[in-house]
């Protein structure tokens, strides 16, 4: 097993979540370690987004425990999560499309200069930093003034990831970053996910693609209709097993047995 001696950056234990009387999550556990990628896999409606909304501070869990660096917590809102070093990149909600790249990059954490009524955005610093931080992650933007909506989906995800890394996030949460992307763009995004991991962040990667997960993942949690149907570290499982388990596991065996002639 991977290094169990250190305290995980984020740890969920037997977490449950109800929307009214809809059970969205039940008894789910997840560990996120620095310099590792924890993948959460599951079909549509399995509860993946619900799980990360708890980590991101958008929702609160109804049962179980949620610890950050060993300390049990309950996040009040996304700002709270950010302050604790947890940055989340949502699939469609990562950026404000009509705003320039540099304004998006610093949104919510804008640097200022001057004092009193003359306190103003440090526009030069913002533009320069955006450019250099993106370059550092290997993204060469022609113009940081273009609306971020003019970038492709993969590029937007990359900017959002670069932003999280720049602001010193310890944990990066990504909700299906590759779901709407083609093969090549998915590859680019996964490369930046790996770059964030190499920078020492703990990453939670949500996906319903076991191939993407296995390319970069260190731990795998499988969700099925809100319940945890499997939890593995990389050494214990092959891509084939992971794919099979995702596709239905023993149910699939049963089915193939029945269909056998």
């Amino acid at each position, binding site marked *: 097993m991977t290094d169990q001696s250190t305290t995980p950056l984020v740890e969920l234990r037997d977490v449950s979540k109800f929307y009214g009387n809809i059970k969205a999550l039940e008894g789910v556990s997840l560990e996120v370690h620095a310099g590792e990628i924890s993948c959460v896999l599951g079909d549509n409606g399995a509860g993946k987004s619900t799980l990360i909304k708890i980590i*991101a501070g*958008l929702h609160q869990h109804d049962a179980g425990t949620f610890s950050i660096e060993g300390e049990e917590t309950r996040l009040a809102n*996304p*700002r709270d999560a*950010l302050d604790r070093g947890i940055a*989340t990149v*949502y699939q469609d*909600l*990562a*950026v*404000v*499309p*009509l*705003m320039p790249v540099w*304004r998006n990059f*610093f*949104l*919510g*954490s*804008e640097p*200022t200069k001057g004092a009193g009524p003359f*306190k*103003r*955005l440090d*526009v030069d610093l913002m533009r320069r930093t955006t450019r250099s931080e993106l370059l550092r992650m*290997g*993204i*060469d*933007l*022609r*113009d940081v*003034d*273009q*609306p971020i909506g*003019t*970038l*492709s989906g993969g*590029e937007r995800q*990359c900017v959002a990831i670069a932003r999280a890394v720049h602001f010193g996030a310890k944990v990066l949460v990504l909700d299906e970053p590759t779901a709407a992307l083609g093969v*090549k763009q998915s*590859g*680019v995004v996964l*490369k930046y996910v790996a770059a964030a991991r190499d920078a020492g962040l703990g990453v939670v990667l949500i996906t319903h693609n076991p191939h993407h997960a296995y390319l970069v993942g260190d731990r795998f949690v499988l969700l099925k209709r809100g319940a945890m149907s499997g939890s593995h570290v990389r050494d214990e499982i092959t891509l084939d097993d992971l794919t099979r388990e995702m596709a239905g596991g023993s149910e699939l065996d049963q089915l193939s047995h029945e269909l056998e002639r």
Partner: protein
Amino acid sequence: MTATAPAEAPAPGGRAPADERLLKTSLLRKLLGRPELGSVVGAAAVFLFFAIVADSFLRASSFGTVLYAASVIGIMAVPVALLMIGGEFDLSAGVLVTSSALVSSMFSYQMTANIWVGVLVSLLVTLAVGVFNGVMLTRTKLPSFIITLGTFLMLTGLNLGLTKMISGTVSTKTIADMEGFSSAKALFASQVTLGGVNLKVTVLWWLGLVALATWILLRTRAGNWIFAVGGGTEAARAVGVPVNKTRVGLYMGVSLGAWISGQHLLFSFDVVQSGEGVGNELIYIIAAVIGGCLITGGYGSAIGSAVGAFIFGMTSKGIVYAEWDPDWFKFFLGAMLLLATLLNAWVRKRAEATR
């Protein structure tokens, strides 16, 4: 964007061609990327049109008159534009101006001898209405259209009802002989002569507000938040933007504009008609939209709203100078709104395409 990964290697010649391309298109692109471009073209067309059809339109005195008409709308169009960039409407903005004037007039008349007390009480009451709109919006999550429609109706009723109850008629008593009247009039309703042109002081208020709003929008954190709240509420919330505070602040901005406009209304005539202001909220919105504000939020400018208000001023007075029936005014305004919106949409598409 190009990544430096082998699969995404830049075209032969490295990065230089990209930068060259950037230089060539950047000026045109910057210009096309401005929200107010469409309205500036429209304003030039309207100006030319009336300069040709109305002889007296080009006189210096006419210019002062046009600017005055523009400023009365413009003072409110600025905060309404900011609110629209933030993704919301305020249908109570028109009658709130009247409410603000009524409060300072009646409070001063009934309670004290000094006008300034009423003026300050009016500021507090007007701001409170803005806070009410903003808090109702953020708490109930109902559309601002509905909430401010409610405020609009309630204020309309209160304006008439309370004025009749307190003054006995639909207008307030004159306050011209009260202490502080002349100093308040100097601030809100005087005339200044600049370069041989007589200008109402509202023109200065208007220009000041445009400058302040532009500064806030483009150079402060709050401005960044306004664009973000209007252009992508959930994305803004997820990165920690105080969405609700921003919205309440925007409604308070509308209140501030309504207070200035209301005091102007009061001190230019010294009495206030309690039924006034209904319908003006739409004119403020029209000015903002003509000026390039996107009705769905996230895009627009304060300068655009000023150009929109200027088009309004030119049209309303130009029709008079051309000696046409003023009934045509609404027709022109409607046509202008449609044309400007189409032009803005087209310009925006072009701007995206050149990137």
